[in-house]
């Protein structure tokens, strides 16, 4: 698992680098994770931590359906960050819900690096 995770994250950071992002920072990722955005239509506040909480070792909760979300931190949930397609799928979907747009390669890289260290 740690090998697959390192490979998947390296692969994605390289890809984001080729798309123009640079100097990925886990600190920036941590700030981004708790940054509030406003949903355009309803005006309701949204942020990553709304569902995932700010403690990535804890179980989260889907804001709409209430379903439990397994912890993101690989230290307690080793399956996390081991599949490039899975990571990209969730980043695409969840950025659209949270920000109302896709995340930039820089935002994705920062968050990825932050999650990897948890």
């Amino acid at each position, binding site marked *: 698992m740690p090998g697959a995770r390192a490979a998947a994250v390296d692969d994605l950071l390289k890809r984001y680098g080729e798309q123009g992002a640079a100097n990925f920072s886990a600190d920036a990722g941590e700030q981004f994770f708790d940054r509030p955005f406003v949903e355009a239509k309803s005006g309701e506040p949204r942020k990553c931590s709304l569902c995932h909480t700010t403690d990535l070792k804890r179980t989260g909760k*889907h804001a*709409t*359906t*209430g*379903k439990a979300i397994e912890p993101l931190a690989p230290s307690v949930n080793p399956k996390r960050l081991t599949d490039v397609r899975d990571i990209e799928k969730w980043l*695409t*979907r969840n950025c*659209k*819900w949270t920000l109302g747009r896709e995340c930039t390669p820089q935002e994705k890289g920062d968050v990825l690096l932050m999650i990897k260290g948890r």
Partner: protein
Amino acid sequence: MKNKAERNGRVLAQCAAAALAGALCTVVLAAPRTFPAVSDSVYVKECGGCHMAFPPQLLPARSWRGVMGSLDAHFGDSAQLDTPTHRAISDYLATNAADGANNAESIAIMASIDGGATPDRISKVPYIEGLHAAVLDPRWNGTPRPKTLAECPVCHYRAGLGDFFERRFKVSDEAFRK
């Protein structure tokens, strides 16, 4: 997991052995499932990440087609899938939908839907909406108090196995006096 027939068979065999030995034996056979347990791994992974992987037998094929045709705006969320995954899940849902299913609940579901209607969510099926009217009422004062009906297992704690008959919730006398 062993299937139910196998499990029941094993219990019966053990009881037969116990009876031969002159011992008493109590057999509790599980109630029949409402629907087959959802077993399609792609469907469970892709749809079950955000909500329970609902048994396809809960909606007619035309409703599932509508759901799968608007995944970019899926109840306020983006649930887009790549093309092969989308096709696989669409096929699974259509093949197992209520209008092709031969169980009492699916038949009741289909009977409650107007021929020309296409419910866009499970809780809009008249039969299901009716059964849950009390829970959906803003004055519902029981526990748990689900925000939506999306999470069946909150009350139907065996729903993951396809069993919707078993349910667990509390309503106080107080709730009835109001």
